[in-house]
Each structure stands twice: as C-alpha cells, then as structure tokens.
C-alpha cells in the first residue's frame, strides 16, 4: 500500500472511531437516563461500528459492508419489536410471547447468521490471504 493510500485509510479509521466515540457517548447518556429503546439502538450502532473497525482492510469494508448493514438493521428491528410487540400469553409465537419471540428467534440467531458466518466465508477474500501471511512470515524472517 502506498503512503498516500495508507494516510487516506488512517483518516477513514480516525473518522470511524470518532463516530464510535459519539455512539458510546449517546449510549451512555441514554442508558443513565433510562431511555431504553435509544440505549438499545445506540448499543447496536456501537457493536456494528466495532465490527466494521475490525473488518476494515486498507480503508475498505469490502464484502463485509452489506452484511454489517443487514446486522444493524436486524438489531434495530429486534429491539424495537421487543419493546413494542405484544406480551400476551394467549398469542404465542413458537412457544413464546411475540415480544420474547423477537428476542429468541431474531436477536439471538441473526448475529450468528449475518456476522459470524460471513467471517468464515469472506476470510480468504478480505481477512487474511496466503499472500498476507507470507508477507508477515517474510517480515519475521528478516527480523531473525
């Protein structure tokens, strides 16, 4: 990577972390104020931004971008449903009240499908290729 590209990538990371700082601040304030829906949404944004920070390579999210956007949308939706859906035990959805079903059938498995699985599938393309590892090995050999 050229110095110029690296500088652009670093600036992008600084902006991402700046946004993460603001998200943490808003999450902390809404948590203390007892604004639980906003707290949950702020936390969802924090989690997504952290994943984005870990997934970035050379300033790009690459193929992770749609997956992380989808994960954020599902988190926001799941917490909204948990707040707003019915808790009437006469209207059950697969054994749980509708609000609890949003937690069990959406909040629980969705991050596994949208965040954890893509890491494995996109690893070779975007996380660590053979060439990346060889470059680190060369670095180590030079040091020795």
């Amino acid at each position, binding site marked *: 990577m050229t110095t110029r590209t690296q500088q652009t990538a670093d600036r992008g990371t600084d902006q991402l*972390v700046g946004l993460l700082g603001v998200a943490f601040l808003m999450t902390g304030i809404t948590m*203390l104020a*007892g604004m639980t829906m906003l707290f*949950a949404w702020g936390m969802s944004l924090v989690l997504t931004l952290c994943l984005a*920070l*870990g997934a970035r390579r*050379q300033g790009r999210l690459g193929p992770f971008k749609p997956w992380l956007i989808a994960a954020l949308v599902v988190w926001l939706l799941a917490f909204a449903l948990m707040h707003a859906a019915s808790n009437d*035990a006469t209207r059950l959805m697969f054994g749980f009240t509708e609000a609890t079903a949003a937690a069990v059938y959406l909040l629980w498995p969705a991050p596994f499908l949208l965040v*954890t699985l893509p890491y494995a599938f996109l690893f070779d393309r975007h996380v660590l290729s053979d060439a990346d590892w060889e470059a680190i090995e060369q670095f180590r050999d030079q040091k020795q």
Partner: protein
Amino acid sequence: MNATIVTIAAIYFAGMIAIGLWAARKTKTSEDYFVAGKGVGMWAIALATMSSAMSGFLFIGGPGIHYSFGMGTLMLTFPAAVSFALAWYMLAKRMRLLAAVRPMMTVPDAIHARYDSNLARGLSAIAILLGVVGYLATQTLAMGVILGQIFGIELWMGVALGVAIVAVYATAGGMIAGIYTDVVQGGIMLLAALITAYLAIDVGGGLPNMTQVIAANNPDWVSPWGGLGPGVVIGWYFVFSLGILGQPQVAHKFYMIREPRRMKWGAVVAAAAAMVTSLVWLSVGTVMRYLADIGDISLASPDDAAPLFMLQYAPSLLAGVFFAGVAAASMSTADSFLNIGAAAFVRDLPMAFGRETSADFQFKWGRIFTVLLAVASGLVAVFSGQLIAILGIFGWGTFAAALAPALGLGLNWARATTAGAIASLIVGVSLQLLLELNNAMGWLPELLPGHVYRAAVSFVASFIVFIGVSFATSPRNLPDDIKAVMNA
C-alpha cells in the same frame, strides 16, 4: 448420590488427570507452558475458547436466575452469537500476527508491544490479577459444591478434591493440558446441555404449555425483560458481547493457533457451541419455574434448580453427564485463570518493573505459582464467607472495562495513544471497583439508578476515555513490525 453418577464423575476426573500427565511429557519450555507451544489446531482453539468463556455459572447459576427472574436473563447468553465474532473480527488476526513477529505469551505482552509502555503493561497485569482472583474463587467454590453433591462429601472436601485435580493437570501440563482438557470439557458441556434441554422441554409438556402456565402467575416473567426491566437486560447484552474483547482467557488463545489461515472457522464453531450450550439455561430454568408454579417442586435456593431437576427427572446416566459437565465448566475456566494468573506473577509484573525474567525462571516459577494460586483459591472458597460473593463480582466486567478498549480498539486503530490506553485502564478498573464495592459494602447511597447495570457504566466510560484521550494526545510512531501487523 447414586453409583452411576459417581462412576461417570470418577471416569471424567481420571480422564482429566490422564490428559494432564500426557501433556506434561510435551511441556518442556515456558512457551509450551503458557501458550501451548503456539501449535494448537482450529477446532481445539474454538472449543477451548468456548468452554473457558462459559463457566460453571451456565449450568447452575444461569438456570437459577432464569427460574427467579425469567426470560430477561437470556440476554446473558444471547451475546454468544456475536461476541465470538467480535473477538475474531477485532483480535484473532492481530494477536496471531503479533505472535508471529514478537515473542508473545500474555495479554500484557500485546499491550506492551502496541503501546511500548511498562506502565500500561503493569496496569493491565494488575487488572488481570483482580479479575483472576474473582473468577478463581467463585469457580473453585462451584467445583466444591458440585463435587460435594456428586460424592456426598462436605464442601471443604469437595473444594480440596477439585483444587487437587485442576492443580495436578494444570501444573503438570500447563496450557497444553488446559487446552485439551478444555476440548473434552467443551464436548461434555455440549452433550449434557443438548440432551438436558430436550428432556426439560419434554417434562414441561412443551414451551407453549409452560409459557401459558407461568404467565398466568407472573406475566412479567415471560416478557423479554423478565422481572428485571429493559435497562439492566440491555446492559447485560452490551457488556457480555463487546466485553469479550477484554477477556484474557479468550484473547491469549489466539497466540496459540498453529495455522493462522485456518482460524476462519473458529468463531463459527465457538459461537455455535456456546449457543447450543446455552439451551440448558433456557430449558431448565423454564421447566423448574413451571414445575414450581404447578406445585410439583419447591426450591430452597434458586441455585438448586438444575441439580434438583437432574436428580428428580433425568435418568442417572444423563444426570452423571450433566454433573460432569458442570464440573467441566468450572474446571475449564479455573485452569485458564490459573495459567493466566501465574503468568502475571512470573512474567508480566516483573517485566512491568523493567526486570526481564528468563524462560527457565518463568517455566519453573510458573508451575509453583499455579499450585500456590490453586491452594489460595481453595482456602478463599472455604474460609472467606461473604468475601467470596464480593470477589465474584470482579470477573467479566472488570476485564471488559479495563482491557477491551486498549486491546480491541488499540490493535485496530493506529491513532490510539499510550496515554489513552493508560487512562482507560485506570478509569475502567477504578470505576468498576468503586461501583461494585460500594454496592456490596454499602459505603455510600447507591450511586446509579436501579435500571442501570453497573459494569456497563465503567465499560462505556473506559471506551469514551480511551477514544477522547487518544484524540487529545499525539500518537507515537509505530515500529515497522507492529505497523505491518495492524495494516495486514
């Protein structure tokens, strides 16, 4: 306790000691002792990470609080679906590549490599020791309780037996024994959880039946927040997902991966195993609440929920596997922390004071400190009375607040500064201590509103301080090898 349960438990313990003795023959250097010679395969790393992260609380305390407070407690287990991914996205590659270019054995080594600061290394070692004391004491007590139930012996004898078994295999075989016993223990936990969950739902006549009966008595119990309210429950989800970035028993395992290119499936295996294991929490807690509501059982303590269910409703063979699974969960967490605690004493703290210790010194004294820590945790478990409840609170939350920003963000953000790391370490640990000790000791009126999970406050504050101070101070020029690791 019946003969089948005792026999299964005895076979399991003999197996653990056998693994320890096998590993002892492979353990010849301090690198073998503390990081399993950096030669562990993907499946073993994934299962060991899962089993050391999921303690005995999953099998005993979890169903107990689920029985008491309802569905909201699931938010302590649901983070597993994303927490392992966070660890792999943010830590796995960086930690493994660090271990390729520098001699890494502990989490404070990574902190030192990233920030070139002995103070940051020392503070992270102190934070780790605080958490280790809490984790070890509670896991040792849990081992004592469960062994006491299995063999019908007194608590102190159960503690002594548990400490002896873990100390033998952890001292003899170091992290090689720790990893491979964790793999077996993870397998037992999975098997026990899966069969127990099926049985529990069957005993309760299915989830719809249990939900309707419980809701008739207590509608809050079946809501997604249970009897706790959304503030606390969302705080749990937050700290137990992102907080994994500060857990040394998870982070240092990435040094041990033999082939970095094969680590891609690790998060999937660890998360899937943790999610399946969590079923025991949901199913046993729910069926015991249902059985209590229809008048079939009465519990003296919520922590009796899972043992009583196994003894009254499960076949002896399954009960034996379950009790072995509980002991396995406690032991797999305890052995990791014995190793991490010993490394803090013989490597991290001396190096923080600028004193290099030789590999031979670390190997020899690492074993001695493993034994000393095991014995000390046993004594604390038996004799400390209320102190153990206080020590128990310095676990996950302390690691999360102290280490997650410096490690998780720091390895992914070149602009992060040494001052930011030191400030967040100090704020994270001190705020966590202040809030939790004040709550336990009642020195001052409660400092936070009732809807707030205390660890979430120190956690958020630590991140904000880390980011704010890093932006306000000048970053150092990173060495080429660290730059290469962070840009990879």
